[in-house]
């Protein structure tokens, strides 16, 4: 049997579930009270989607970029990398996603966010709302301390899911896939980690990734507002 076939996901898990979940508690305690502005930024994104302004399409990507940069540095580099050395390689990729959002969205204006009566838009809004409002409740529902809650712009999963939703809300276009790749890859990595730990909530990032791909591939009719070609 080839050597690579002898490896399982368990062979790549470097820490115990207890250590992993306590990491979120420690991180929330360390960055408090940044959770408040993080929640406000998430709310601001929702408000600008419902009541768009001329500058919304450039500010929303800037907020997203700031979230990816902050998560890369504060969570992946300073926190998660202490128990998972692979995060030293993932953190720069998160920073690259931030730069991509900043470049394509804020500087070049290639993203046009809009709520449209289409399936991709509905999926996008559902993913965004889930990431901002429901995902923080998962820790409590799973029986863990609410202090281990995972928030948009504080931890990776809700940040990635919110980004998937927002890119879908920006519609179709040539820049959609480049922006989706890293959040999709992260969701699969997160699923692999949670699944290996036996955590049932592992299906959440995987389902989010599946929905995002389905939304992106959904047949589109007409020229709706969205990502510019």
């Amino acid at each position, binding site marked *: 049997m080839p050597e690579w076939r002898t490896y399982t996901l368990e062979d790549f898990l*470097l*820490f115990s579930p*207890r250590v992993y979940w306590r990491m979120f508690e420690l991180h929330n305690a360390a960055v408090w009270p940044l959770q408040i502005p993080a929640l406000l930024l998430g709310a601001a994104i929702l408000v600008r989607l419902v009541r768009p302004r001329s500058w919304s399409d450039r500010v929303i990507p800037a907020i997203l970029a700031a979230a990816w940069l902050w998560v890369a540095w504060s969570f992946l580099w300073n926190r998660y990398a202490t128990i998972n050395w692979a995060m030293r390689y993932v953190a720069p990729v998160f920073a690259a996603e931030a730069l991509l959002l900043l470049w394509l969205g804020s500087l070049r204006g290639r993203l046009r966010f809009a709520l449209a009566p289409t399936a991709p838009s509905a999926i996008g809004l559902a993913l965004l709302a889930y990431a901002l409002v429901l995902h923080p409740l998962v820790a409590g529902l799973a029986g863990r301390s609410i202090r281990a809650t995972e928030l948009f712009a504080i931890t990776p999963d809700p940040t990635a899911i919110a980004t998937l939703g927002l890119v879908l809300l920006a519609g179709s276009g040539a820049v959609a896939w480049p922006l989706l790749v890293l959040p999709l890859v992260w969701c699969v990595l997160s699923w692999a980690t949670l699944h290996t730990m036996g955590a049932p909530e592992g299906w959440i990032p995987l389902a989010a990734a599946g929905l995002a791909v389905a939304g992106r591939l959904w047949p589109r009719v007409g020229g709706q507002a969205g990502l510019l070609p």
Partner: protein
Amino acid sequence: MSSRHPKRRAVLAAGAALAMAAATSPFPARAQPAAPATRRIPSSGEAIPAVGLGTWITFNVGDDPVLRDECAAVLAAFFAAGGRVIDSSPMYGSSQAVIGYGLAKLGVPPGLFTADKVWTSSGTAGPAQIEQSRRLWGIPRFDLLQVHNLLAWEEHLRTLFAMKEREEVRYVGITTSEGRRHDLLETIMRTQPLDFVQVTYNIVDREVEERILPLAMERGMGVIVNRPFQQGALTRRLEGEKLPPWSHEIGAVTWAQLILKFILSHPAVTVAIPATTRVDHVRENVAAATGPLPDAAMRRRMVTYVQDL
């Protein structure tokens, strides 16, 4: 020399080590168990306790102060029980730093046997990684350095043998796990003057009995056994089963002890390194090295019993 009948000097040394550990331990004094059996390192004759402490996953707790103190408590119980061999790797996340935290908190016990690994695909990066590992442990030098999972083994072995020549490390070894790359391991064992090999061995993973363990005895190499409980999967599988009625004949009162006694009863095995986060388990593990060990007939009986479960 068989360690099942340790020399008086070794017993006295272990007793003295235990007494000093108890004197320096910040934890409440407990009734001291019998000194665990020791094994001789084939290349030197040095005696070391037969049950060590692995740190894969269990000591990777990052900066968590509560969990770091729990690991230090495991170390304290390990030392108090007479354990001395600790094994880690730069691959194990924060484990090296957590060992260093524990040693700084508890003090370095006499007779501590430090085993670490070099794990990088770059031969030239090996010395810097080893130095970083040493700083994380907070010790002057390692007793044993091993090439982790045969990664860049030729370059790293050159480095390690040169370090041994300069007395910067006392022993040199090489590791595999889960039965991987045994053909290459065998080739290296036949051509390199290793002091130790580290392999996976337990009552259900017995592939090494065929070639690796006999070759280690033939070549005078010590054997460190990793994953004795299959990362806990084996003990979890067995915990609902009854111990065999004859387990008392070898002094095993738990499945973990029965498994460890099986491993330690192989004449090629020098040290087994179970990993744990629990103080009661570390005491139980070290205690497995005391008392009688199964003979060949009992070993066959143990294998059959577990296979039939």
